[in-house]
């Protein structure tokens, strides 16, 4: 049965809703634009700290080097006859030793940061916590994000709600092409790949309204592949979960197939029920990957035409 093109794609009935989403998206995201130097959780904190520390270490070398270069160039300018002219001086063992030692020592230091940091901030490493992590399964599609909460048996599109103070264990895959799950204020990003499951552990320490995106170009609708991220108090999270169980459609296989088709500017929705084996089926590709572009007409030979690509 050929499912008719409806939800998410530009259709007359949905244009009003789409227009609202169009306006709402920038306003919503504008209100909560926090960057990577404004983390709200331990992982993001560590990421940012390492970035800053590495920068400071490098600046200690870089700034004097640049200043030295300009000083030497100015001091030995041709018009300065007071500076000694050493037309045959081109070697000094002592200077060589220093010149090799400075970068080597700096890099040894950075190397330490690299090794320690890579292990400590391994995305697959669980976060130390008294509370067990919340499980969230993530599927990147063209061009929206599907979040499945297997323990709560709900799912959302383009909306991630998590409890503050509790680690979240993400398992991620892609239903179509490569993407990257990235919430700047929570820290580390990770690729989502078809046929594979990657993992990520993040945590928000306090309630906040922030945003996430795909950090890997994935096609025509990529620019709108942002999603709202809300960390809320645990009680509020429980309430939200309950509410979601009461409204919205069921995410069954036909609904998923419809969702998987290419669309962009999907407004946030929730699903009141989802089969907890759905994620595994997508990851193992028992459900085939989402289809590519379905051009409206074959009028442009060799040049795909997709609604997302032509949208202005």
């Amino acid at each position, binding site marked *: 049965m050929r499912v008719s093109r409806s939800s998410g794609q530009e259709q007359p009935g949905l244009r009003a809703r789409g227009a609202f989403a169009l306006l709402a998206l*920038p306003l919503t995201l*504008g209100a909560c*634009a926090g*960057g990577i*130097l404004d983390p709200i959780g331990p992982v993001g904190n560590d*990421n940012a700290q390492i*970035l800053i520390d*590495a*920068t400071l270490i490098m600046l200690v070398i*870089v700034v004097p*080097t*640049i200043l030295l*270069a*300009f000083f030497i*160039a100015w001091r*030995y*300018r041709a018009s300065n006859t007071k500076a000694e*002219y*050493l*037309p*045959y001086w*081109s070697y*000094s063992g002592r*200077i*060589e030793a220093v*010149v*090799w030692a*400075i*970068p*080597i020592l700096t*890099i040894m230091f950075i*190397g330490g940061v*690299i090794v320690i*940091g*890579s*292990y400590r901030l391994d995305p697959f490493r669980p976060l130390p916590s008294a509370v067990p992590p919340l499980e969230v399964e993530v599927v990147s599609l063209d061009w929206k994000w599907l979040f499945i909460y297997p323990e709560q048996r709900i799912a959302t599109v383009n909306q991630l709600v998590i409890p503050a103070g509790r680690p979240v264990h993400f398992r991620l895959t892609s239903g179509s*092409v490569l993407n*990257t799950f990235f919430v*700047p204020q929570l820290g*580390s*990003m*990770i*690729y989502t*790949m*078809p046929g594979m499951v990657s*993992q990520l552990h993040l945590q928000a320490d306090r309630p906040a309204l922030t945003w996430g*995106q*795909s950090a890997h*170009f994935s096609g*025509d609708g990529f*620019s709108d592949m942002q999603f709202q991220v809300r960390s809320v108090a645990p009680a509020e999270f429980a309430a939200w979960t309950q509410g979601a169980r009461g409204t919205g459609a069921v995410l069954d296989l036909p609904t998923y197939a419809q969702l998987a088709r290419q669309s962009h500017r999907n407004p946030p929705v929730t699903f009141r029920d989802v089969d907890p084996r759905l994620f595994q089926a997508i990851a193992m590709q028992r459900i085939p*990957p989402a289809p*590519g*572009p379905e051009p409206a007409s074959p*009028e*442009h030979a*060799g*040049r795909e035409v997709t609604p997302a*690509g*032509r949208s202005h």
Partner: protein
Amino acid sequence: MFGKLSWSAIPWHEPIPLMTGLVLILAIAGTLGLITYKKWWPYLWHEWITSVDHKRIGIMYVLLGVLGLVRGFADAIMMRSQQAMAVGGGEGYLTPEHYNQVFSAHGTIMIFFAAMPLVIGFMNFVTPLQLGVRDVAFPTMNSVSFWLTASGFLLINVSLFVGEFARTGWLPYPPLSGSEYSPGVGVDYYLWAVQISGIGTLMTGINFVTTVLKMRCPGMSLLRMPIFCWTVLASSLIIVAVFPILTATLAMLSLDRVFGWHYFTADLGGNPMMFMNLIWAWGHPEVYILVLPAFGIFSEVFSTFSGKPLFGYRSMVAATMFICIVSLMTWLHHFFTMGSGPAVNAAFGISTSIIAVGTGVKIYNWIFTMYGGRVRFGVPMLWSLGFVFTFVIGGMTGVLLAVPPADFIVHNSMFLVAHFHNVIIGGVVFALFAGLHYWFPKAFGFRLHEGWGVAAFWFHFLGFWLTFTPLYILGLQGMTRRLQHVNISEWSGMLSVSALGVAVTTIGVVCQIVMLLVSILQREKLKDLTGDPWDGRSLEWATPSPAPFFNFAVTPNVEGEEAYWGIKTRAIESQQLSAEPKYAPIEMPVHSPVGFYTAAFATVTGFALIWQIWWLAGLGLLGAWAGFVVFAWRDVHEFHVPVEEVARVDRARREAREALLERIAAEGASA
């Protein structure tokens, strides 16, 4: 009959590509018409198109690279302006369908058809002159290399108005670039343009490794070679090692797309991660292919414009070869976030940082080259000092990105975009502009106008920092790359500043165009009378400007480092030139059209493969094969330059040198 090709492949309903295509066709037609009208075809055919002279080929490469720079820069203007306009609800003027082609074309053209031809052009022009020989190891293959690169560039430009270009970014990651998600011809245009020019580049690599290792003039041992030739060697070794990887990977992707194979598909056993590994195993060494000769250019400029030999020559050689080898071991840093695990990530993070050791040593050695010197701030030196500032900061951000947990928050962001432009523009582009100014007199016989050169430098330098500092900031605010429109209105300020930066850079470009025109108009005044306008130290400055087609009347016999400096100081001290040598007839390779024909058939084959017109592809391959066989059948491959001609050219050179000696003696007497 015509595969996927039909009249609807032309973008009748899309004004921007249609107009650009029309302008391009008119420009090409106009140029061809002008050449025909002025009856320049015989000259162009015999002296340039079929030339196997490394100097001519080098100049053609540089011309091609400049065209690529112009087209790539136009794409950049479009990208920055689109992002500045399409913020917080604004829509800009480029749909995603177009914007995605623009940024893909920008990257592809800048790397393959601007930076590579420019760097290879310098390699071509300078290396045999510095080595004291008459041409490269394989002159005809050199011509083939150039024309194959030109063929690739032609295909990319054809995609403007017949079909489309790739919409995947400059490295077409599958599954997005597979036939399922990119069914159009765009990715195929990319694949064949890059594949064809890649074969040309591989030939260049083979050519220059052989030239540097097997063709140096007598007395020039490896450790007496100018440092630029060492960097050419290192770069060419990398080319030979990694361009086959590119060929293989693009071939695999083509097989997936055309025949439904499963190298990189999302299902049935395909492995997209394998593409990432393969393509970056090529991709990272590629940027060192570009930057090593750039470092070589700076070494020449620093030493010449300080009036001193390069400090720590052997150290520089060691650093160059060190970078050459380690560059093959760092590719995974392009996908730290793919989840390879902490051990693998840490190992590649360390190898990436280690490269900074080689680069750091070079920076310090250049500084100590200036120490104790008499630094002249000519235009090449300005570019070099601008490079020190710009590249060191860019390198610093590179080391930051080499730390995996730091990369986890800035990967694929505007911070990354700013970093790699920082090192490519600060490193490669600045070097190319310095080299252009430095070797222009050797190529054409007159210098470039100094004042406009200084203006161009400052506008480029300021424009660069104005364009990319906001992008660093935006990356730290979380902005990712390749966005056709930006949904966070707070970022519009930085995006506008960046667009302003592009405008400033454009003024720099205009200054360079004016510089060229003014220099041509004033070429008598700017004439290089002696062949040695900068008080140079290496052998290319021993020749007149422009150099005769056989380079040296008599192959030099080198007795120390800085071959020409020794000859020059001896002549100045004894106040006379060395005795007139005994001239002998010279054998030079004949010109050959095989390069042009091969590329013509390659273009036809590429176009046919893109549109799946199989019979035409077969004809194209057959034509290329036939061309080779015809070429292989020739009986004459060298011609003799009679001894009178050699003597005449060299005596003119000696007269100019004697005049220079007299002038130096007069200045010495009056000082």
